[in-house]
């Protein structure tokens, strides 16, 4: 402690002997850390926006199907609406919303074209809480209730069918008897989502869809959302326990692309951290080596006056500690201010087409990630000090006589 009291003020003053060099190092450290912290928030925001966009649309945080439905999504593999303990599990606190759906593969026919389609029977009241499709109606209206036997089409599908609101289309799908059902549906709304969804998903009322294929109340899936993603794993486990004969899956098993992108986003920052730190380390070591070489004579003098090698090491290491610590504080402040300035979101709608390909959201909202702010800042600080120990060690092992022979 006494050592620190003696050496810290000297280390601090030494830092400002070459202001230009100190400022350059501060810039290197602070900009490097800023890039890591901001990039982390940006990637998180990008990942979150993309994830939200995709999950909110149709997938939800998880889905429940009859066993085997995911491998063979046919009308023979449906399930009954939830009841008893299963229903209680779905109504439990951690589940934000859930909705029953019937998904029927079939074809849609207009006056001009016949195209494949996934007809989804939904309960509009539940979908309004769970899915973003109701908000994406750009023409006409959304479905009124589960009995609504009109249809909602995506922009792209409507364009390809050369149809629109106020026109009629015919939907065909296999019914419970194994025959083909066909029925005319009024197009009442057009929604705007990503092209893949627009092309293949048409929506009608759940009861209307069940009637269309001759079902009573069977459904193909239950989609659910949970407000706290951390609770997803335990929720899936709990639901699986409540409905052991059903197939409960989290979104990562339902959209592998999204899961891979999410994992990449989470881990890419470490690659960036390694790149930035490597560059930073070169700068720090170079600066501190220069600082040590320039003061070789002085280190000899300090050693001659009675300073121990360990104290010289501490002195130089303290200089690095202050320098990098100050740079880290600046970097944190810069990153904090940048994120604050962008709190209203980064609008990437100009790149909407490209983002759609990557399932990315169009407006990103970078947020403070307190845990990573602390971890990355400490990591840069500690690693910076560790690499700067090499110049410090060189200074400490100088022989006082050899060192004092050098005149700088």
């Amino acid at each position, binding site marked *: 402690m*006494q050592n620190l*009291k*003696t050496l810290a003020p*000297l280390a601090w*003053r*030494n830092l*400002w*002997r070459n202001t230009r060099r100190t400022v350059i190092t501060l810039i290197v450290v602070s900009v490097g850390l800023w890039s890591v912290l901001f990039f982390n928030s940006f990637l998180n925001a990008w990942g979150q926006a993309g994830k939200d966009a995709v999950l909110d649309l149709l997938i939800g945080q998880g889905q429940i199907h009859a066993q085997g439905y995911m491998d063979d999504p046919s009308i023979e593999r449906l399930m009954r609406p939830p009841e008893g303990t299963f229903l209680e599990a779905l109504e439990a606190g951690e589940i934000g919303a859930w909705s029953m759906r019937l998904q029927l593969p079939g074809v849609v026919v207009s006056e001009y074209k016949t195209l494949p389609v996934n007809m989804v029977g939904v309960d509009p009241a539940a979908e309004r809480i769970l899915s973003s499709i109701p908000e994406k109606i750009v023409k006409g209206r959304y479905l009124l209730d589960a009995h609504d036997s009109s249809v909602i089409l995506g922009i792209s599908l409507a364009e390809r069918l050369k149809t629109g609101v106020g026109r009629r289309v015919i939907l065909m799908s296999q019914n419970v008897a194994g025959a083909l059902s066909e029925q005319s549906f009024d197009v009442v709304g057009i929604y705007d989502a990503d092209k893949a969804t627009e092309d293949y998903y048409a929506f009608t009322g759940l009861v209307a869809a069940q009637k269309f294929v001759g079902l009573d109340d069977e459904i193909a899936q239950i989609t659910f959302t949970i407000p706290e993603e951390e609770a997803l794993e335990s929720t899936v486990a709990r639901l699986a326990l409540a409905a052991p004969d059903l197939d409960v899956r989290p979104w990562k098993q339902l959209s592998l692309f999204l899961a891979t992108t999410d994992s990449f986003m989470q881990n890419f920052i470490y690659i960036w951290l390694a790149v930035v730190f490597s560059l930073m380390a070169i700068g720090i070591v170079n600066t501190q080596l220069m600082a040590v070489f320039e003061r070789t*004579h*002085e280190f000899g*003098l*300090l*050693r*001659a*006056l*009675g*300073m*121990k*090698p*360990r*104290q010289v090491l501490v002195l130089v290491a303290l200089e690095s500690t202050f320098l990098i610590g100050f740079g880290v504080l600046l970097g944190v402040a810069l990153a904090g201010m940048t994120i604050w300035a962008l709190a209203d979101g980064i609008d990437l709608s100009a790149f909407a087409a490209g983002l759609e390909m990557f399932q990315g959201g169009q407006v990103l909202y970078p947020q403070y990630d307190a845990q990573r702010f602390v971890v990355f800042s400490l990591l840069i600080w500690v690693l910076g000090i560790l690499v700067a120990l090499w110049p410090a060690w060189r200074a400490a092992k100088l022989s*006082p*006589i050899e060192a*004092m022979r050098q*005149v700088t």
Partner: protein
Amino acid sequence: MINPIVRCRGVGKSFGSGELVVHALRDVDLDILAGDFATLAGPSGSGKTTLLNMIGALDRPTSGTVEIDGQSLAGMDKSGLSELRLHKIGFVFQAYNLVPVLSAQENIEFVLQLQKVAPDERARRAREVLAEVGLEGMGHRRPSALSGGQQQRVAVARALVSRPSIVLADEPTANLDSATTTELVGLMARLNQELGITFVIGTHDPRVMDHSQRHIELLDGRIASDTRS
């Protein structure tokens, strides 16, 4: 019999190896007594600085023994030698011998800080020695704001502040003009006489030798003469 502050017996120091060995010191026997004001003189390469380095525990002899205040340097590690220098020896070097980021007073106090002396005591003693070397009121100045002579005075003050057993000065006047040299040597001589501080000064400056009570002449790494006036 007075115990000497420095006791060298059969001290030799050689550099290099094989055919390129240079013998800087050969079989030197020397005692420095308390209160000595001694000059080490001799032509360049005679071994003055090497001998001062041995006495100052800055280097180790190749052969023989060196004792400072009864403590043998043999077997001491680097930290032990640092500790010995800190408490027993004061140094005045030729030039560049103050820490530029510290003021005159802080340079003086620094040695006391290393000795873990309390702040008030440090400040008091630093002010006292500044006054002793005639720099009262100039303690706040950084070395760059002091003349060469004033810087050497600060170096003398720093060497004295911990009341070491001996002060070693290697060519302390080499970078000073004539008037400043006279002033500095007069100061050291006065401190020797008034406070009994032991000085060993490596020099070939006759103005310094004129003040010395003891004159040690080195030649080719050996003591050629050792006279008292």
